């Protein structure tokens, strides 16, 4: 079967605008992601995780190599690939419901149908009663939920998530991770989730892709053999497979950071 995402010989080089140095962010990266897989990507900071995601999103053209989604070369952004950004990328001048509906508006979906989809996602992310609120009236966790809902509502084939829960508090992060897990199970979307948090990567991923230090390439692909239904933090942390997988991934990552403590 054809892979949903296929990267071959991917390399990316750019010039740092401040130091004017040439930076080789990615080099010879090969990766295949089958349809419906939740793949998490971890690696030391600066290993090109975000660059990889940006290339897949079509926002950054790679210097070399091929990027195929559904067998077609990526030449720019497209609504088949939805992105949830690290910072809050929802629009401050749109209410919760209008932010969530934005992708559908762009697709020309009629108003009544839009309203139905919005209602469904507002329920899914637990923001009932907040539909008419503006982002500045929401907490950080709520805003990031809206961002996830906006991407999901547009119904992309592939979800690209760039450390989406990095800037919310620990308690909210756990809730969001569990919610995302439920959503992933329900929608069966292909998801590529970038994080620097090994625990998060193991908790969410069907497989966990460890990148090497810069220039980033795939160091290892670690399968996480725990059924999705058992992935709540309570069940998960007591599962021996979780601890073993986490330690394994952590070891791989630490080899790359060279002893620097990375949790």
């Amino acid at each position, binding site marked *: 079967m054809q892979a949903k995402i296929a990267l071959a010989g991917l390399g990316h080089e750019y010039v740092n605008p401040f130091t004017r140095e040439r930076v080789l962010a990615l080099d010879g990266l090969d990766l295949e992601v089958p349809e419906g897989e939740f793949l998490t990507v971890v690696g030391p900071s600066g290993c090109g995780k975000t660059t990889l995601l940006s290339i897949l*999103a*079509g*926002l950054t053209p790679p210097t070399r190599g091929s990027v195929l989604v559904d067998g077609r070369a990526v030449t*720019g*952004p*497209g*609504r088949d*690939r*939805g*992105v949830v*950004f690290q*910072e809050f*990328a*929802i*629009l*401050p*001048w749109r209410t919760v419901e209008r932010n969530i509906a*934005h*992708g559908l508006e*762009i*697709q020309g979906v009629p108003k009544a149908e839009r309203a139905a989809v919005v209602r469904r996602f507002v329920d899914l992310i637990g923001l009932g009663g907040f539909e008419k609120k*503006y*982002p*500045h*009236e929401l907490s950080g966790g709520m805003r990031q939920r809206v961002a996830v809902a*906006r*991407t999901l509502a*547009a119904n992309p084939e592939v979800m690209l998530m760039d450390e989406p829960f990095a800037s919310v508090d620990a308690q909210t992060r756990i809730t969001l991770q569990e919610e995302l897990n439920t959503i992933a199970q329900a929608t069966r979307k292909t998801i590529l989730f970038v994080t620097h948090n090994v625990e998060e990567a193991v908790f969410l991923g069907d497989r966990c892709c460890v990148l090497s230090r810069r220039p980033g390439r795939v160091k290892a692909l670690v399968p996480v053999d725990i059924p999705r239904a058992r992935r709540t933090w309570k069940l998960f942390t007591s599962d021996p497979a979780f601890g073993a997988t986490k330690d394994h991934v952590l070891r791989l990552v630490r080899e790359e950071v060279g002893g620097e403590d990375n949790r």
Partner: protein
Amino acid sequence: MTARREIVATWVVVLAAATGAWSLAAATLPVPAYYLPPPTAVLTALRDLTAKGILPTYVADSLRRIVVAALIGLVVGVPAGLALGMSRRVADFFYPLLNFFQSVSGIAWLPLMLVWFGFGERTILVAVNYTVLFPVMFNAVLGVRSVPRLYVDALRTLGAPRWRIVRDVVLPGALPSIATGMRLGLAYGWRALIAAEMLVGAHGLGFMIFNAQNFHQTARIMLGMGIIGVLWLALDYFFLRPLEEATIARWGLVQR
């Protein structure tokens, strides 16, 4: 609301005290009457000039000129600034030019404009519109350039075409800066208008206070100055504030 009422009450007291002090000074200071007329003389001037229809006509002249300039600023200056701001290279190229012209106020242009356009309405309109237009354009350009790249990228990944990015992201994102531009432009324009009316001498509040000086009608001068200030407050309250309340204040982009 009670805080607002307190502010109003405080102002009533302050104004009453100031008026009292002014009256006292006018009555006791050893200066000619025209040097410091009492508040009552200003009120008399207000009544007389209103009854003769001079004041309403002049106020209408000045207001019409500034409102026309405001509309032209909105209809021409804002779109022009937005267009220039769209491309980083174009914006960088025009930046020093716009910055230069927004600093050379219409007042500094007046001598040259009098040579070119003569002592008449044309000079006033050119001076005022010029003064309003540049800060408006300049700030619209800055506004476009200040829209976070992230918002644009987010919309691109949702599959938005360029026109929609402009409408849904660039325009609202530039609005705080556009509002600042309108505020600055109109404030500068209002000053330039009064100055132009003084020099050109063709009706308007500026003409009124300048002309009154020739006849030692100090009360008229003070009346005109007061009205200039009050009209600005009204312009702010009825035109600029509603614009901001409906948009950027509601979106949490400014702290009120």
